[in-house]
């Protein structure tokens, strides 16, 4: 457990004001906000170090021995999750789920993780959307699960706060379904996407095609340059042009002088004090030496990523509650959600042969939810879905899927190919008590710790929604005049959206929820869970921006409470 940055101001190396478990999007934000408010913070990361710029493994295709193709040797990642996440340059970033990341499945679950400093903030898709009032009101209106204990107005100022610092580019659209934010100037749509926008918006007055709102800078921020259009974000950006812990929150936290970081530090449990009914600190396994050590703090922020945050809770205070800290409601580990996808349509668009693209834009467009919104009513399912997509002029790669060899063929595939336009749907998953994760008492990981056992699947609402996701994708492709339309529903195992959330939901009542409206564990008020575990419903928009805002809000509350000696 090597100390990453030595905190010279800390007098007792094992005692801090706050401990943050995890260093991804939520953990990075917790560390930044807490240290900037003057707290001495220890950040614990179970994986190894990953230094900004120095450790990035980028290069042009010709620099790579396998030209970007993932290798069998890299890949202990299962073939069914090797897909668009698979590139030679990044394969070592994903967790080896046969080794360090073992888990078991009653029903298939795709758990795609990064165990390294920065977590998935280095590997995320960067789409950043606000939730709207309809999302926070959804459970109450539909009478399912439990009501969110907060509304849009509670989070709106914190969205403002995190957007300005993280740097979100996007266009103001004045849509209630997708509230505007503090945007940098938008990335441009290309000529075919503008064409599609026009036709889709003409045909349907409740549909919009807008450029993705993404955490890619179009204007420089302190220590960070604007996007250089390489589209190699995942390999690490030397320009710091996309938001990650490394490029954004970590430098800010380090600059305060209040942050200590330990890597290879796996939190095995939160130490719960029965007398005070609060956490005293955490127990940490040094994965290099296999020794455990305790660290103490006034507050603990659990930001280990949705499923692992609940894993930590399940392993904690088991002498008081058999199923762990936060289990008194019976909801810990339940209500796993994700966004279900693998439904897409694409086709060729004629008429733009004199145009192509220059530069490699790191994001495409977004079509916000329209189904079951406003006057749109659907049969067979509640909630809705959005689409991400892009238009691209094809290159030589089309030759892999087409007939021909020899000089004439090679010359023809070297010329600009047709424009291909495609969209992929992301649908909301309902919270369902039956979709759960528990500790597998039979199977242990390489440290001898119990692994998680997943038992969850898409249910009737999602399966009905998928039919409309596909049908509407086809409708829109037809509307823009696309040819040779291909559409597919490839099925979806939960987790594959890499938006896994739930398992420690927020709520108004300790009897039916794990966390209160300030992300405090009802059973230990100085423990805060602010990553995806806290979600009470899933919306259909990408969730990371909401985790950022939720974390900043909870930190503000925690520090105020500390000042009042309430924690």
């Amino acid at each position, binding site marked *: 457990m090597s100390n990453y940055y030595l905190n010279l101001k800390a007098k007792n190396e094992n005692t801090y004001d706050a401990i943050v478990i995890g260093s991804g999007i939520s953990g990075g934000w917790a560390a930044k906000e807490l240290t900037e408010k003057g707290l001495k913070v220890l950040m614990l990361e179970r994986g190894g170090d990953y230094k900004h710029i120095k450790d990035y493994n980028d290069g*042009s*295709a*010709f620099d790579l*021995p*396998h*030209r*970007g*193709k993932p290798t*069998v040797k890299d*890949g*202990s990642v*299962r*073939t*069914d999750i*090797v*897909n*668009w996440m698979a590139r030679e340059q990044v394969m070592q970033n994903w967790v080896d789920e046969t080794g360090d990341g073992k888990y078991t499945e009653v029903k298939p679950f795709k758990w795609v993780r990064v165990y390294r400093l920065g977590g998935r903030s280095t590997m995320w*898709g*960067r789409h950043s959307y606000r939730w709207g009032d309809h999302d926070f009101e959804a459970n109450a209106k539909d009478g399912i699960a439990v009501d969110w204990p907060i509304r849009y107005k509670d989070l709106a100022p914190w969205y403002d706060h995190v957007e300005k610092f993280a740097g979100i580019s996007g266009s103001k659209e004045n849509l209630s379904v997708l509230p505007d934010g503090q945007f940098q100037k938008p*990335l*441009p*749509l*290309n*000529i075919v996407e503008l064409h599609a926008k026009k036709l889709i918006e003409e045909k349907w007055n409740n549909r919009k095609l807008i450029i993705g709102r993404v955490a890619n800078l179009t204007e420089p921020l302190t220590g960070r340059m604007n996007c*250089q*259009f390489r589209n190699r974000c995942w390999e690490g950006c030397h320009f710091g042009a996309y938001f990650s812990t490394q490029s954004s929150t970590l430098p800010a936290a380090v600059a305060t002088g209040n942050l200590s970081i330990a890597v290879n530090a796996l939190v095995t449990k939160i130490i719960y004090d029965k007398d005070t009914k609060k956490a005293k600190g955490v127990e940490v396994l040094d994965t290099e030496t296999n020794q455990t050590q305790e660290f103490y703090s006034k507050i603990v922020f659990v930001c280990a990523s949705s499923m692992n945050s609940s894993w930590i809770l399940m392993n904690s205070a088991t002498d008081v509650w058999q199923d762990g800290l936060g289990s008194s409601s019976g909801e810990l580990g339940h209500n796993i959600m994700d966004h279900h996808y693998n439904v897409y349509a*694409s086709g060729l668009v004629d008429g733009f042969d*004199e*145009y*192509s*693209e*220059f*530069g*490699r*834009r*790191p994001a*495409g467009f977004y079509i916000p939810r329209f189904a079951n919104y406003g006057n749109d009513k659907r049969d067979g399912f509640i909630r809705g879905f959005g689409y*991400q*997509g*892009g238009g*691209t*002029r094809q290159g*030589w*790669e*089309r030759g*892999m*899927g087409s*007939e021909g*060899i*020899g*000089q004439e063929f*090679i*010359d023809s595939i*070297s*010329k600009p190919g047709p424009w*291909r336009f*495609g969209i*992929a749907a992301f649908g909301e998953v309902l919270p369902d008590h039956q979709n759960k994760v528990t500790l597998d008492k039979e199977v242990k990981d390489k440290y001898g710790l119990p692994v998680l056992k997943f038992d969850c699947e898409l249910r009737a609402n999602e399966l009905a929604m998928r039919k409309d996701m596909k049908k509407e994708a086809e409708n829109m492709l037809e509307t823009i005049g696309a040819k040779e339309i291909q559409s*597919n529903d490839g*099925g979806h195992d939960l987790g594959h959206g890499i938006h896994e959330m739930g398992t420690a939901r927020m709520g108004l009542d300790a009897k039916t929820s794990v966390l209160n409206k300030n992300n405090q564990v009802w059973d230990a008020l100085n423990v805060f869970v602010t990553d995806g575990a806290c979600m009470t419903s899933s919306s259909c928009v990408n969730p990371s921006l909401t985790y950022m805002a939720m974390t900043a809000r909870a930190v503000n509350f925690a520090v105020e409470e500390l000042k009042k000696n309430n924690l």
Partner: protein
Amino acid sequence: MERRAAIQRVGILLGTTFIATDLFLTGCKSDTSRLTDETIEFSHSKDLILALASTIIPAGGKHPGFAASNEINAMITILNDCYKLEDQKTLKTGLETINRMANEKYKKDFIALNNEEKHNFLGEIDKTYFDKNTKEENKAYYYGILKEATLLTYFTNEKVMTDLFSYTKVPGKYDGALKVDANNYATNFGLGI
């Protein structure tokens, strides 16, 4: 497993178009088999693979051709390291099939054919492979692997990317309506390259 769908599948996520190049891997929606360390070594078939790749991409026009690109070792590395054992076995058998078929037709190994014979012979295999009427069980999947690896290796060659396609590592800007001449070579690169 829909193999044909797999090879032509185009995914669009995060705004980047990519084509699923793993013929056997990505077509299976519930393939939970694991990649293994066991692999087949293809350097023993280097001369034959070079002859096949050079037939797919001969020198001519603006193109130096596969042989002059000096990428045969990179292609062998990709065949050795990037395909599941099941696919490698298919390829190994396929290479034997090519020589058997060449001998049946020309009484010679593929490598001993003249350029025209090579083009015609491999062109037939290519045509059959992409023919919609060819039944799945009769498909020469080894050919799909060969063609994929040939194009990937050649078109990601540094000279090809920079000289023929004016690749720039750091574009610095994005233009979504760049005027181009349809007869000039493309300005963009697939596969997220």
